[in-house]
């Protein structure tokens, strides 16, 4: 297999020289599969991510909050679409990707398996969940696969308002009544650890990291990104007047970073495996929406076909 070896060497040389890989270029099968898995799971996360927030649209406390939340959720639908399209350039069909989500073969970010119990949770989702996602996505704008990188650039541009709208919600609560402050602290208590889990397993347990780094699909490891996130959150929490729920969180002069406690990995794997508080509810809602929308997709296609046929007949008559 000298041929395959030389193709792979050439491929790696392009990666090393920071040349982006485009859809029709030769790529190792495993690179293609890794990207399909990662991009589609990213797309699924955007789509499922709409559900916990949709829960609060009708109960947003003001019109200003409501239009912002609606716009954010609409963005997430858009981001899902950019990402599905990027995955499709690798030769997979949209329907197959959606089926993998619905049958549980494909995962999505576990964070969306936690409930949004109060309005403060919508703020915490914007600040912490979108904050963690942005950290990952900014890194991915430099990913080696062209269509994925371009989707990420677009997503990052749009996403920064998401985090700000969340932080603004929390800031308002932090200046409110004692009850509102308690609600804020409670939301942060519940979302802090699941947000840190969003960066995935620790580097020593991550089976994909080494290869993904070599192929520059990822440019930073899970633990590097997690540390970066913790470091920026501490000051932001101080301004909100909230306590991050970790007694071991403290500045480490020597490392130049904040130390923090070990993540509860049992909880992490348990939610990944489907036993989180809302896994079933989320999938049921997705599948229901997909199935109940089937007639709309079919009717649109039938209408398009009828119109095309009519146009064809008219052209023949004129001729």
């Amino acid at each position, binding site marked *: 297999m000298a041929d395959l070896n030389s193709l792979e060497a050439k491929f790696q040389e392009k990666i090393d020289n920071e040349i982006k890989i485009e859809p029709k270029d030769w790529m190792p099968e495993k690179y293609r599969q890794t990207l399909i898995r990662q991009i589609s799971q990213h797309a699924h996360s955007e789509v499922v991510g709409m559900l916990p927030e949709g829960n609060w649209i009708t109960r947003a406390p003001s019109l200003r909050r409501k239009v912002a939340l609606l*716009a954010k959720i609409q963005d997430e639908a*858009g981001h899902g679409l950019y990402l599905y399209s990027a995955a499709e350039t690798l030769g997979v069909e949209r329907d197959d990707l959606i089926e993998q989500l619905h049958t549980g073969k494909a995962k999505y970010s576990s964070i969306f398996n936690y409930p949004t119990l109060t309005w403060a949770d919508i703020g915490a989702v914007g600040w912490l969940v979108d904050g963690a996602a942005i950290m990952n996505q900014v890194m991915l704008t430099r990913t080696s696969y062209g269509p994925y990188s371009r989707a990420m650039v677009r997503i990052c541009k*749009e996403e920064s308002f998401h985090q700000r709208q969340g932080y603004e919600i929390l800031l308002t609560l932090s200046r409110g009544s004692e009850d509102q402050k308690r609600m804020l602290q409670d939301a942060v208590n519940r979302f802090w650890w699941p947000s840190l889990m969003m960066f995935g397993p620790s580097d020593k347990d991550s089976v994909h990291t080494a290869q993904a780094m070599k192929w520059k699909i990822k440019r930073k490891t899970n633990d590097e990104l997690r540390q970066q996130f913790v470091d920026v959150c501490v000051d932001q929490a101080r301004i909100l007047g909230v306590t991050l729920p970790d007694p071991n969180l403290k500045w480490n002069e020597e490392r130049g970073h904040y130390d923090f406690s070990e993540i509860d990995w049992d909880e992490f794997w348990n939610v990944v495996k489907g036993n989180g508080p809302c896994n079933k509810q989320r999938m049921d809602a997705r599948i229901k929406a997909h199935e109940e929308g089937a007639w709309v997709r079919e009717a*649109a*296609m039938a*209408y398009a076909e009828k119109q095309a046929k009519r146009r064809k007949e008219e052209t023949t008559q004129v001729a």
Partner: protein
Amino acid sequence: MKNNWPLWEVFIRSKQGLHHKHAGSLHAADAQMAIENARDVYTRRNEGISIWVVESDKITASKPEENPELFEPAADKIYRHPTFYDMPDEVKHM
């Protein structure tokens, strides 16, 4: 049932005077729906003033393996660039 909505490529003109530029792709039942969807997916923040859509399978693309024949001949034709020609410093407006 399989969703058989075809794939469309979307091109957006961001303002008068500029080319339409590839923005991405989407699924739609027909051209009209492709434009409507493209408006929602790719122009939520004033990114465009005009949209083109074309069914993806109507596009013919060059193959990366043909790149040497297609593009390498241009590399050694440096006489196509103005810097190839010697000009004394005192010559202006050229």
